[in-house]
């Protein structure tokens, strides 16, 4: 049906609210009681994560098996299986949640489906083996509210992820979806909307942190027959996946926010520039756009007003630099994604030379809720100059890998040790990398710094899109810097000299150092050249590309020195600096290492200690991985 008035929207909301009420209620109350049909529960819902991570671990198979078990037991009228967006706790995926008792099952396999139906859904007994075990207390926790991972989080941009069915527009409407749009179109002037966004203090979540309201105002003020709203969904930062999860879990929030933006700046055309590597996000977004059209929330005369707006999808093709707005615009025009000098800003001359407003996915996901809850509400969250929350993709050597959302101003310590559950395998924390290839490494001394745009910049890193990679004592910081440089060199578009040649030289120096040929003078060259690139490169990518090198030089100078002076790598990562040997006292001569050595570098008689020939050893570490007696040493 087409929604023509606020009244129609209210009718749908009422109808859909009923479906969501079970989930809403169980979200409000905290219960440890287990519900099942045997104990008189009338209706149950099984929510299953349909995000990329969980799908990769066969969440589709779980859904299929659950459905057939429901059929087999003849309880289809009482139990629903609903695919929702990402719950965030990817480390323990696939996740299955049972409503109304809020039981949170982790690492579920398709084989567990039968038990979930017979034991829990019918029998009303929790399945202990699938419950999350709190590593601190070693007790099982069945309600996600009681998990450290969720306790400190505040989910605003991710409010609907893991809660609603992303392929059902009515569930989104039931969560006050499209109400912000209706309110803007029917009751507010474009300038009022812009003013509200300005007052909320929302800053762009894509990296730069530019105030969103100001950006809208610039584009609004431009005189032009046609203007464009662009959603930047080219999430190129490796290790960041928040935009993907939002599009997979709550695509309608993006559609609604783009509409609101279009109304505010005077545009009738929206474009989403999305990575081709995100097939699931693309398909969910397409479904959302189609549904919004069918409901009359996209297209001509939306909600019976004069306002017309529609959205098209454009595909990226794997170029990190296209996250930069001018490069992105060129790419949408079918050209090489090379950035151009600003000004002119896209707000003046963007896509096809017309005024264009580019916002990132997470920024847009905040818009509808700011409008429904008010600018003042949003402005109370966060720090003085960074309002609201930030989504981080927590990854690397951390116990709880996943997607988290915390208020700005939360400290790194809270994120890593409380939400993230500390370092994997009880190792020692070394650094956390934020901001991706444009960011830097933060260390122990930054752990109590409240995270916001300005504090991260002051600490020599940046917010970036929100990737947060945790590293432990086994990571070599010189190698990490080399890894990022390798990335930048490959992704540099080649337009300006500092980035094209300068970064290449930086990479060569880092290769030299990790291969044991570096000198102390090279460290000075790294620092000077890094600074020159920072000062002279054309676009954001080039200007920030030396950050990983400069920040590791700052924080881990000793480690660089060891590489060049002593030719050692304390993390045992730089192959050229390592020697593998066998401890004759521990070696029992089982010959397993020799059998697995790809270079035939290990010799020895059975039951006699073996030796590694240093000339033949390719330092692959295979022997170490195979040895059951810890007899292989590396130094």
């Amino acid at each position, binding site marked *: 049906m087409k929604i023509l008035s606020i009244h129609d929207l209210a009718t749908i909301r009422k109808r859909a609210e009923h479906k969501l009420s079970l989930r809403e209620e169980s979200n409000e109350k905290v219960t440890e009681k287990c519900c099942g049909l045997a104990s008189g529960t009338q209706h149950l819902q099984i929510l299953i994560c349909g995000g990329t991570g969980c799908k990769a671990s066969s969440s589709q198979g779980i859904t299929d098996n659950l459905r057939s078990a429901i059929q087999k037991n003849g309880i289809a009228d009482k139990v629903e299986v609903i695919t929702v967006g990402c719950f965030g706790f990817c480390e323990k995926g696939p996740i299955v949640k049972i409503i109304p008792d809020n039981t949170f099952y982790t690492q579920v396999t398709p084989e567990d489906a039968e038990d979930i139906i017979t034991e829990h859904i019918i029998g009303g007994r929790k399945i202990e083996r699938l419950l999350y075990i709190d590593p601190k207390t070693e007790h099982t926790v069945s309600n996600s509210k009681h998990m450290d991972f969720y306790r400190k989080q505040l989910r605003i941009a991710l409010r609907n992820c893991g809660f609603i069915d992303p392929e059902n527009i009515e569930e989104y409407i039931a969560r006050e979806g499209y109400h912000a749009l209706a309110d803007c179109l029917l009751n507010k002037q474009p300038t009022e909307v812009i003013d509200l966004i300005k007052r909320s203090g929302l800053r762009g979540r894509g990296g730069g942190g530019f105030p969103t309201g100001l950006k809208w105002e610039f584009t609004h003020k431009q005189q032009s027959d046609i203007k464009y709203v662009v959603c930047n969904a080219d999430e190129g930062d*490796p290790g960041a996946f928040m935009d993907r*999860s939002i599009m997979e879990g709550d695509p309608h929030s993006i559609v609604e926010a783009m509409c609101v933006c279009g109304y505010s700046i005077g545009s009738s055309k929206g474009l989403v520039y999305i990575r081709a590597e995100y097939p699931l996000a693309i398909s969910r977004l397409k479904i959302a756009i189609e549904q919004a059209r069918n409901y009359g929330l996209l297209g001509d005369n939306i909600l019976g007003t004069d306002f017309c707006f529609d959205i098209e999808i454009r595909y990226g093709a*794997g170029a990190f630099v296209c996250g930069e707005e001018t490069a992105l615009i060129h790419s949408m*025009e079918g050209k090489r994604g090379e950035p151009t000098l600003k000004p002119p800003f896209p707000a003046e001359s963007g896509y096809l030379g017309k005024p264009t407003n580019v916002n990132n996915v997470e920024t847009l996901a905040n818009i509808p809720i700011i409008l429904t809850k008010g600018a003042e509400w949003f402005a109370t969250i966060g720090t003085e100059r960074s309002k609201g929350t930030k989504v981080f993709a927590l990854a690397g050597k951390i116990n709880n890998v996943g997607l988290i959302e915390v208020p700005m101003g939360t400290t790194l310590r809270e994120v890593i040790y409380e939400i993230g559950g500390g370092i994997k395998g009880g190792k020692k924390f070394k650094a956390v990398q934020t901001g991706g290839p444009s960011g830097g490494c933060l260390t122990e001394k930054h752990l109590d710094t409240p995270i916001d745009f300005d504090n991260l910049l002051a600490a020599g890193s940046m917010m970036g899109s929100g990737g947060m990679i945790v590293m432990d004592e086994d990571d070599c910081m010189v190698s990490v810097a080399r890894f990022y440089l390798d990335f930048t060199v490959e992704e540099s578009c080649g337009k300006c000299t500092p980035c094209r040649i300068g970064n290449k030289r930086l990479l060569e120096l880092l290769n030299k150092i990790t291969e044991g040929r570096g000198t102390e003078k090279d460290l000075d060259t790294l620092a000077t050249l890094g600074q020159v690139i920072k000062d002279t490169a054309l676009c954001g990518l080039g200007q920030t590309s030396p950050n990983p090198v400069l920040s590791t030089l700052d924080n881990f100078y000793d480690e660089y020195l060891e590489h060049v002076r002593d030719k050692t790598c304390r993390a045992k990562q730089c192959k050229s600096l390592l020697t593998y040997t066998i401890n004759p006292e521990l070696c029992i001569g089982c010959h397993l290492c020799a059998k697995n050595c*790809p270079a035939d570098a290990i010799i020895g008689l059975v039951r006699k200690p073996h030796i590694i020939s240093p000339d033949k050893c390719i330092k692959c570490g295979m022997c170490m991985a195979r040895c059951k007696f810890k007899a292989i040493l590396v130094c």
Partner: protein
Amino acid sequence: MSDIKLACDVAEQVRTICDKHGNNPGELINILHEAQHLHGYLPEEMQCIIASKLNIPVSKVYGVVTFYAFFTMTPKGKHPISVCMGTACYVRGSEKLLEEFKRVLGIEVGETTPDGKFSLDCLRCVGACGLAPVVMIGEKVYGRLQPIDVKKIIEELE
């Protein structure tokens, strides 16, 4: 233009794709996506066909094809292997994994085995960082792999 070695029906389908997009040079990237989806890769001749349909220089098409990592001018193997080199996978050992794939298959990144069975590539983050290190073979995602698993996987696929 050199002799057309591309099968006639493929060439015709590529022309149809261009027509579908109104032969609009602004649609070049979308056209290339569809053409690669159709044929698996974008050989020189195909780029010539697209250039003449859109009435732009071949150099421009070539410039775009080589700029974006997603487009390839070499045919992929029956089992295209992509090792994730995103940061999360890197710190959990994807570099060693890649070395092992190179060693077992005897090819470098960007190459295809002579029998056409396997090709090896790197990719940047599929967003399944919880499963790091991740390798994609075809459409299937393999998570939490160690170098010692590589040989077995290859043998299974062979």
